[in-house]
């Protein structure tokens, strides 16, 4: 139950942040705002809810709503693709390896999503849907982990440089803090994904595992808090960040 509530919180916060970023993008926020906004919105508002409503992964294949499950898989793949593109644009725009890496990841994401759809469509109706799609779900999970890990590593690494710039007055401390929060979000989701993949690979039923529920609750709440503070910083948070930076300089 705790896991379900945390997932609901994750979905609500992802959607709110995603819509806010799309609004920023429409007002000239650039490609980064579009990709990040689509990433949160496609995954939070569409992908995960549709996938859950379809019953995929929870009920036998015959009881899964195939169209909703398929839409959920495609939206999740599209959302993760958008996050790969965001990391590329924000941190590695000029590097050829990053373009190749992102392109390859996007192709693999859609191959996995359509693999999942195909597996559900061709499996016997009485087969548990989680078993029917195990390989493709695992593939999507691994790609998702890579996506968030890349974003987390780049975010934290860039923050170590941004705080030096902030100390010299070359950047706003709030911008440096936003980069840190973004990196922390990536790290949180990576740890959660890795934990759930490991438990799933060991044959643990995630819906019944206390460890899975508590981990989902904890990491979902932390990651929701980080993205909210990053993109909806309250006045109190912004002034605390700037005050801390001033004190650190002194």
């Amino acid at each position, binding site marked *: 139950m705790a896991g379900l509530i945390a997932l609901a919180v994750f979905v609500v916060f992802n959607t709110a942040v995603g819509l*806010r*970023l799309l*609004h*920023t993008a429409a007002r000239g*926020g*650039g490609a*980064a*705002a579009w990709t*990040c906004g689509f990433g949160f919105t496609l995954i939070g508002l569409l992908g995960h809810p549709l996938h859950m409503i379809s019953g995929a992964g929870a009920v036998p294949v015959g009881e899964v709503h195939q169209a909703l499950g398929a839409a959920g898989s495609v939206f999740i793949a599209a959302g993760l693709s958008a996050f790969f593109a965001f990391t590329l*644009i*924000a*941190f590695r*725009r*000029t*590097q050829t390896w990053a373009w190749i890496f992102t392109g390859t990841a996007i192709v693999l994401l859609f191959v996995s999503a359509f693999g999942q759809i195909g597996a559900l469509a061709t499996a016997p109706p009485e087969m548990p849907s989680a078993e029917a799609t195990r390989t493709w779900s695992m593939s999507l999970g691994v790609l998702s982990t890579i996506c968030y890990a890349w974003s987390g590593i780049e975010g934290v690494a*860039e923050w*170590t*440089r*941004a*705080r*030096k*710039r902030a100390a*010299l*007055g*070359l*950047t*706003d401390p*709030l*911008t440096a803090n*936003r*980069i840190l929060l*973004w990196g922390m979000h990536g790290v949180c989701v990576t740890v959660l994904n890795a934990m759930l993949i490991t438990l799933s690979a060991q044959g643990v039923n995630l819906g019944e595992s206390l460890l899975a529920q508590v981990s989902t609750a904890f990491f979902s709440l932390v990651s929701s808090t980080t993205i909210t503070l*990053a*993109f909806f*910083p309250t006045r109190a948070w912004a002034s605390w960040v700037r005050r801390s930076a001033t004190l650190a300089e002194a």
Partner: protein
Amino acid sequence: MPTSPVFEYVCEQVERLTAFNRLEARGTVRIALSVAGLDPDTVTPAQMGVVIARTLPHELNMRGIADVAALCRTIATGLAGIQSGPARSSADDVFRRLGG
């Protein structure tokens, strides 16, 4: 990716005004930039001005260069005439815009 014209200018000046060879001059400027959290590929004249004032003097002092203050003043004077390279969006620009 080519390094910024500002970086090239400062390296040339450090090499010309000290006993450093090309490699030593570039290495020292790279370290001064790194201490400031900046990248030789994207550094702008304004950012380099701060580096020359705040982090480069310390790096030059550490390497036994005499009259660092005058040297940095000379380099900073010529900085005004250096064109910034093609505009590149940095992570700072991206995350500042995401704040709305």
